[in-house]
């Protein structure tokens, strides 16, 4: 049980950190740029919200199968399989939690007052300094919400990680799957403990999100 919990936490933490990096440019272009294919990109980012997790898991399995280009490239570099591995689960989680990272950041970026962006321009700022000095400090709350939601959502995965990870004990068996198996094996006491821990974790993460959302993040000048 402890193993599964640790794997879940590792998966959620790794996914969240990587997602913040991946989501930043996506949120930036969706917030500020108009281009051909914008709607398609927005839909692609939002898809995991409505897709059955098993469908997502199925496609991820196809992408990382040993005979796929990604699977074989991974195998030749790391000498291991992506399918039914922790890394494979990370990849699947990135896709699965993508909207939970991108959308709060995108909304926060959009809420940055236009005059602040104009101010940045008059100071000669290009994209990078603008992000560093103006957009990200102004969107701190949105970035924190993105991190908290990504973490909580990844902790709660079931279908995707089951398909991609395969529930290998001490390797890819995460807490949510462990709970399912405990109930199946009628180990009620352990199941109750694990369920309570997951409930408490989710409660804490959501409390963080709601307290950030309630606070005025920046006091207008």
């Amino acid at each position: 049980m402890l193993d599964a919990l640790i794997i879940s936490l590792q998966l959620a933490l790794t996914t969240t950190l990587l997602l913040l990096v991946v989501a930043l440019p996506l949120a930036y272009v969706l917030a500020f740029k108009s281009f051909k294919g914008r709607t398609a990109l927005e839909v692609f980012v939002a898809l995991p919200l409505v897709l059955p997790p098993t469908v997502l898991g199925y496609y991820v399995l196809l992408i990382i199968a040993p005979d796929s280009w990604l699977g074989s490239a991974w195998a030749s570099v790391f000498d291991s399989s992506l399918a039914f591995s922790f890394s494979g689960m990370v990849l699947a989680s990135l896709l699965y939690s993508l909207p939970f990272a991108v959308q709060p950041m995108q909304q926060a970026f959009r809420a940055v007052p236009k005059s602040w962006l104009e101010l940045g321009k008059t100071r000669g700022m290009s994209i990078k300094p603008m992000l560093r000095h103006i957009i990200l400090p102004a969107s701190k709350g949105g970035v924190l919400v993105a991190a908290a939601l990504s973490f909580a959502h990844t902790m709660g995965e079931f279908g995707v990680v089951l398909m991609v990870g395969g529930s290998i004990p001490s390797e890819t068996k995460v807490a949510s799957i462990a709970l399912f198996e405990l109930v199946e094996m009628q180990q009620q006491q352990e199941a109750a403990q694990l369920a309570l821990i997951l409930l408490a974790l989710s409660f804490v993460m959501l409390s963080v999100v709601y307290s950030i959302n309630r606070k005025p993040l920046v006091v207008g000048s």
Partner: protein
Amino acid sequence: MNHMRMTTTLGSLDLDAQAEFAREIIVISGENGAGKTTLLRCLAGLEDCQGQLQIAGNVWLDSVTGFVKPTEQRHIGFVWSDAVLLPWLDAEANIMLGVKDGDVAWFNQVCEALEVSPLLKRKPAMLSTGEAQRVSLARALYIKPSLLLLDEPFSAQAPDIRLRLRQALKALQQALDIPMLMVSHDAEDAQVLAQQHWRMREGKLMSEVKTKPQDKVMNHE
């Protein structure tokens, strides 16, 4: 000499502004909605417009060739009618925003002249409207811009400090030796500061040549 001939249409406003100016102070007055702010924004490159603009021998806009120098490269000092300070930075950091290795002596000179030295460690939330406005003025001057664009920079100042600020601003403009365009509803600003006085009506610019000596001692009641 600086040349300007710019037109743009924004909502119901048809801006049509043609003028020449030297490294001097130009006060722009006119009714609300006459296009004063739009003119400043066109000069800053913050609005799309057509025509020609040449500042200090450099082309900033040329619709014939389709050239538009982006705001980031114009090196302008812009003061918005509201202060536009970043709320998470103190006054000092706001003034220095985006500048590395600035001129310390000039910083002190600007802060002394505009009476913001005692405010430097305060966050914008702890500044009065007038103080915030002076900080934003100091921020625009600190970068030693090639053009100063001020949208009602004294609107929130008490009458006594307004008198001192006029002289201070004039001295700073002379030290920089740059053109300064200032939107103002205060007739005294035009009387005391203006070397050219432009009036705007329904988007059209009408120039009035000033004949009185520039160093005339202020006479106020």
